[in-house]
């Protein structure tokens, strides 16, 4: 089947419809664009919780403040885990494009280990805070903290499940077109989570611990 020509330009749009003259955009570009729109909507949802946290961060209701609760050494290790997992995820994507399958599995396994370490550290932080009586019901500051950081943690959990699924699918079906597109989308998701973490680190932890 030949590519249908969508060359007819709409009146008034002129040369801005650059794709029209060349036929449809490649599927990979369209898929990545759609997933990018989803990621932006996800980031907008995060921005609402960021705004809530920024408004409520001083309302400790006599309870512990960020300065007493946050341990920056702990947070620094979490940051490094997430940053290096983003790096290995990117290298895994490159290995997949070049069909270096063992490098792909190695990089993605490392991504999983680093992501799981991050999640474990975050959970131990949450458990420690709740054990000290600083749970989400203690103050408005802590409610906002647990919703914002917890939502990011939930995203990481979903990402880790997706990662396992993609490893299994690659092992079962090989590097087919749709498998590679899903892995591309996963890598975009994982990098976007790292961007959200940069905001969390600066607003919640570094400003809160001062």
């Amino acid at each position, binding site marked *: *089947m030949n590519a249908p020509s969508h060359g007819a330009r709409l009146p008034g749009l002129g040369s801005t419809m650059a794709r029209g003259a060349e036929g449809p955009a490649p599927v990979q570009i369209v898929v990545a*664009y759609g997933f*990018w729109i989803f990621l*932006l909507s996800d980031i907008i949802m995060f921005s609402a919780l960021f705004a809530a946290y920024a408004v409520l961060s001083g309302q400790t209701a006599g309870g512990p403040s960020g300065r007493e609760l946050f341990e*920056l050494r702990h947070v620094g290790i979490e940051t490094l885990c997430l940053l290096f997992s983003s*790096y290995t995820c990117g290298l895994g994507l490159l290995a997949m*494009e070049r069909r270096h399958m063992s490098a792909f599995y190695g990089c993605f396994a490392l991504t999983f280990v680093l992501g799981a370490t991050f999640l474990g550290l975050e959970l131990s932080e949450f458990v420690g805070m709740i054990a000290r009586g600083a749970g989400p019901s203690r103050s408005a500051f802590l409610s906002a903290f647990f919703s914002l950081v917890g939502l990011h943690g939930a995203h990481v959990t979903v990402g880790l499940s997706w990662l396992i699924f993609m490893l299994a699918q690659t092992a079962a079906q090989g590097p087919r077109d749709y498998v590679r597109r899903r892995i*591309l989308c996963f890598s975009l998701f994982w990098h976007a989570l790292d961007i959200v973490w940069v905001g969390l680190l600066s607003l919640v932890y*570094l400003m809160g611990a*001062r």
Partner: protein
Amino acid sequence: MDGKAPGDTERKTSGSVVTYTVGLVFALALTGASFIVSQTNLLWTPGVPAGLAVLAIAQMGVHLVFFLHISTGPDNTNNVIALAFGVLIVTLIVVGSLWIMANLNASMVDPATIMQMQR
């Protein structure tokens, strides 16, 4: 018929090992700078939040360019326009909420005054 949709050709993403490594180095440097700025008195104290915000936005830019490969190339025009719209909405939500809540806070009547008014 090979079962492929029209235009379903393999495309390389624009990254390379060098791009990712450069991005990682920049990100590490900016993260380190954020920790230093927040933990020392290197920066004028009232300017620290602004400094942290600048470093965070710079690092988000590094992630977008080196990890997500948002560029000015022709295949990327739509992605950049969507990103600009996303940034607009995020700014409206965050700045708008802070502005409105600060305003409400400032015009709150002191509880002691209310008690006096009820007398």
